[in-house]
């Protein structure tokens, strides 16, 4: 691994040196490079399309707003910079010498910020080689109605084809048959292990602090690795470099405040601080106290804090420091018996990045990344003397330190090369329990921390060989080591597009992915109890292979009805090997059971199997105009097969979903009023429900000597246990279909010193009682009739109205 790393560095450094030191004859090609920023804030813009109008020659800005384009030397050429939601800039250049060109784009509010792009830029979907990738402008996320008015990135992603939600109101993401653990969620390069607040009803991402959100669900570029099903790449805003700005919002359950501005007077840097906190605890505490006559106090809250600073050390060097810190905490105290219970979890991430420009064609970024997720339960009961009568502490978590070095190299107009290396040092704490009782006897059950190393080396090239072809080919070599167990896995990736007509292309992709960390989850709804565990000698890495084909069509002309529409149709087939699940009967509560004398290894509670998923996805977008939005439809099948589950037969996992529909519409009624609405439909979850009960028996006790006789033991079939009959198949019960409509309206007004927005929204407009879970219950009957059993559907959210008040200054 070290050898490869040195080789990579050597090649890149040499290329930089050579590019700078060699004597240069009159150039036949020249390189234009620079940064693209937003006018006003000077925020670096990601994914700006930089191209020579009328040709297929072009590139896009990287995560730091940098671009480089090498063109034939000529006296005059035009270069265009376009980006969704911004006015396109065209510049005429004398291309006799290489030059640096930094460009500012002016935000154009009504231009197209209401559109969803099917790739990173506003280039046509038919022109990109990348498929299965969706970028959602943060500005748009703010316009889509949200539950309790809390704008949520992950819930908007759930509205896209190929992406499914779990249960009602949950932020869990299921991409093309994969579980929520198979999503690589990265915030400024740092992995976020649990993206849920409030038991999954909200995600940890505060939209005010985000600059970009991009989801890749297939055709993965080689720079990404470590998860099977998707990459959700989020970048925080850098902060306004020109002057101090802020945003604030007050909603029903939370308030937010964001401040951003220049870091120094020379405007070479900027900062951003954004915080959010709920006040459920403040609202609920007096109610709980009143209802329990002061005997019980309880509260729940979550908060999160995003912060980022950046500074230009010179023309070639920039540093960025960003971090996220969030916590959820539930606590309750019962005064009469002096019992306290507390539950808490949260993520902390930190990223230190150093951009260095070796020359106009070679850009590098070195990142030092920290990520930590912790979950804890604490409970204690005090004696009258105030000492512990009983106490319990349970902790689990995962902590990462990571070093990553990436290079973007633009050798010619036909090639954009990215390569890099990353090493992640994970420390897992699967569970640690400390129990103490009156006798001051202490019981400790601590599964030792598990330290592992995960690393990857990659190279990819976006190649434009001929006018009609675009190819992104890449290769990733991933490596994992835990004690004596090591895995070295090659991961080829390729995606290609062939342009049939200027507005129509066909695309195909193949990706092989490996995943070395696993999530043990009984629910799949992102509960904090979900446990991250590593690959070990007994649990092998998960591996997937995915093939996708599709067409992309842009409606660039035609009738007024179809103009601005973009259609993508994709089919995929994905196989997953060595996916893990709890064994039948196991749950996180049974790991490290403190009543068990023998130590339980978590591997004893899991079993490995395989899965496969296939389906078709249709996305029809309306990108421009006062009415915009999209219609998505997914038809899919997902099946799992585990030797130790369901008798070895294949079965549909809980979130197998045959049909999934989403309709999103945003209408700019006027400059001051924005209307929006969504409607979603999904086939019900596959669940395991009992269909009957019956008595089971042990073999009759063997005859016992008279001297040891126990009359009860001599009768056969005496020892009985009642068991549930779940039918022949696991998950054979289909929940009722899920559907829901949300609407929202925003009133904008520009005041003297700020812009204010009132927002009203209604979640679940027609109050559909969507199933959250089902339960069998006993129901008393009139007269002397025996109680009967009935099936009850529990829903969590009927119609929920919300309002919020936001200002921007």
């Amino acid at each position: 691994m070290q050898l490869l790393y040195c080789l990579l560095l050597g090649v890149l450094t040499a290329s930089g040196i050579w590019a700078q030191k060699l004597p240069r004859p009159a150039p036949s090609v020249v390189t234009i490079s620079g940064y693209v920023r937003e006018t006003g804030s000077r925020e670096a813009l990601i994914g700006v399309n930089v191209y020579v109008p009328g040709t297929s020659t072009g590139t896009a800005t990287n995560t730091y707003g940098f671009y480089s384009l090498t063109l034939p030397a000529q006296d005059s050429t035009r270069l265009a910079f376009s980006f969704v939601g911004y006015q396109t800039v065209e510049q005429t250049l004398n291309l006799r010498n290489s030059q640096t060109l930094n460009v500012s784009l002016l935000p154009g509010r009504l231009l197209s910020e209401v559109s969803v792009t099917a790739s990173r830029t506003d280039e046509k979907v038919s022109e990109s080689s990348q498929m299965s990738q969706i970028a959602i402008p943060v500005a748009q996320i703010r316009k889509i109605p949200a539950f309790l008015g809390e704008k949520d990135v992950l819930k908007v992603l759930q509205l896209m084809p190929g992406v499914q939600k779990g249960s009602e109101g949950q932020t869990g993401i299921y991409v093309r048959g994969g579980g929520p653990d198979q999503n690589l969620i990265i915030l400024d390069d740092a992995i976020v292990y649990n993206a849920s607040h409030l038991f999954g009803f909200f995600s940890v991402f505060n939209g005010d602090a985000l600059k970009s959100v991009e989801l890749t669900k297939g055709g993965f570029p080689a720079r990404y690795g470590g998860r099977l099903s998707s990459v959700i790449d989020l970048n925080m805003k850098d902060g306004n470099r020109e002057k101090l700005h802020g945003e604030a919002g007050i909603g029903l359950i939370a308030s937010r405040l964001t401040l951003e501005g220049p870091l120094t007077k020379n405007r070479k840097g900027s900062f951003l601080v954004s915080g959010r906190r709920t006040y459920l605890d403040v609202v609920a505490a007096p109610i709980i106290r009143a209802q329990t006559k002061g005997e019980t106090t309880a509260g729940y809250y979550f908060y999160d804090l995003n912060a980022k600073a950046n500074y230009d050390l010179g023309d070639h060097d920039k540093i960025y420091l960003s971090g996220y810190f969030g916590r959820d905490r539930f606590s309750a105290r019962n005064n009469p018996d002096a019992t306290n219970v507390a539950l808490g979890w949260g993520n902390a991430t930190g990223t230190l990045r150093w951009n260095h420009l070796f020359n106009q064609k070679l850009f590098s970024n070195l990142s030092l990344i920290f990520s930590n997720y912790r979950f804890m339960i604490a409970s204690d009961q005090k004696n009258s003397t105030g000492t512990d009568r009983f106490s319990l502490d349970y902790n689990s978590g995962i902590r990462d330190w990571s070093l990553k070095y990436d290079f973007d190299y633009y050798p010619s107009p036909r090639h954009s090369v990215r390569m890099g290396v990353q090493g992640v040092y994970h420390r897992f704490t699967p569970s640690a329990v400390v129990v103490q009782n009156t006798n001051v006897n202490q019981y400790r059950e601590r599964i030792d921390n598990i330290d592992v190393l995960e690393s990857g080396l990659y190279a990819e090239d976006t190649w434009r060989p001929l006018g009609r072809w675009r190819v992104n080919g890449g290769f990733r070599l991933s490596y994992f080591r835990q004690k004596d167990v090591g895995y070295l896995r090659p991961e080829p990736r390729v995606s290609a597009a062939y342009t049939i007509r200027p507005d129509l292309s066909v695309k195909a992709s193949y990706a092989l992915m490996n995943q070395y960390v696993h999530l043990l989850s009984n629910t799949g709804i992102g509960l904090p109890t979900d446990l991250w565990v590593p690959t070990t000698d007994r649990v092998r890495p998960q591996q997937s292979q995915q093939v996708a084909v599709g067409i992309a069509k842009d409606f660039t002309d035609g009738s007024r009805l179809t103009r601005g529409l973009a259609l993508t149709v994709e089919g995929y087939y994905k196989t997953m090997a060595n996916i893990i699940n709890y064994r039948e009967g196991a749950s996180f509560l049974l790991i490290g059971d403190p009543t068990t004398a023998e130590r339980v290894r978590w591997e004893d509670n899991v079993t490995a199997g395989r899965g496969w998923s296939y389906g078709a996805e249709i996305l029809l977008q309306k990108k421009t105009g006062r009415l915009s939005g999209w219609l998505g439809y997914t038809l899919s099948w997902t099946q799992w097969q585990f030797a130790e589950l369901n008798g070895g037969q294949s079965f549909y996992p809980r979130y197998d979903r045959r049909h999934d529909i989403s309709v999103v519409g945003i209408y700019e009624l006027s400059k001051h009023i924005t209307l929006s609405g969504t409607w979603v439909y999904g086939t019900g979850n596959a669940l395991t429900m009992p269909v009957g009960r019956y008595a089971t028996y042990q073999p009759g006790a063997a005859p016992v000597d008279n001297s040891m006789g126990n009359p009860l033991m001599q009768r056969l079939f005496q020892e009985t246990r009642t068991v549930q009959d779940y039918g022949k198949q696991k998950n054979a019960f289909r929940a009722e279909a899920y559907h829901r409509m949300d609407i929202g309206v925003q009133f904008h007004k520009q005041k003297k010193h700020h812009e204010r927005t009132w927002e009203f929204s209604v979640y679940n407009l027609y109050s559909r009682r969507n199933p959250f879970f089902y339960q069998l219950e006993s129901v008393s009957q009139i007269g002397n009739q025996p109680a009967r059993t009935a099936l009850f559907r529990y829903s969590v959210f009927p119609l929920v109205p919300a309002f919020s008040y936001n200002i921007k200054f």
Partner: protein
Amino acid sequence: MKQLFLLVLSGGLATVLWDCGSLRNEVNPAFLNNETAKVVVNGFLSPQDTVLAIKLTRSQTVLGDSVGTVVYGDDIPNATVTVSTGDRSVQLTYSARLGYYRASVSQFPIVAGQTYRLVVQTPSGYRAESSCSIPGPVAIETVALDSTADTRLNRFGARRFYTTIRWRDPVGIPNFYQLRGLFQFVGNCTTCPEYASGAPRLITTTTRFDAGSVGLTTDAEVDGSLILSPRAYLTGWRNYVNNPDGSFPTLFKTANIRMDLLNVEQTYYRYQNAIQRQSQTGGNPFAEPVLIPSNIQGGLGCFAGYNQSSITARLK
């Protein structure tokens, strides 16, 4: 603008007032899988049997039942139950007093290595079939008494006594075992209520295993070796001794153990293991549901063979 604002506000309030229904709703029973009651067979054959016995009950469909009650087994008394091997067969007769079908083993001995077929036919037309084979005998070689500090929550530091046995696993074939134990003792307690009427008497209890175990084990990864059994804890004695923290000889005047080793079929192992795991979840909604496997075609339950060895020892 203001009108629209007020309209939105009043519309929101109206919808909230209108939507005050329950979030818990009964679902039409037809929505649940329409399963009918099934025949449940529990039959375990062994060469050590003194009687050939089959328990036949009917399952209760979930919606025709009350989840709040214990299922004791709704016996099917009028079925035709036949066990056969080769060209021999025997029809079992139902005993209303005992609650199961039975036949004398003198008429139909159970022999290791043989395969037995079971056919159940009910008057209403249900037919269930299964077959089983009888594993060979496995002798217990040693039995031992030991103790350990109690790590359970409310008994820190106390001693837990347990027995273990060892046996030689037959090489080359997968084997599945079940342990059972009976602990018989005369306690030293002088204040126990049971002693008030007279002299101390023998108390017999069953042994228990670690949480999550019912004494099932396999020879996976230890094929052909000398296998040490799971710990069989001596239970039910703490109320019958004066000083529970005393040493073993001071606690008991007399203590005997009888350990049974059942060499069982895989079908038996999977069935009993699943029953244990299902009961262990204790209604935990987050636990993975446990499906109970069955080798009964046309029904539920288990028809399996086993071969039993026993050892009795005096504990000191």
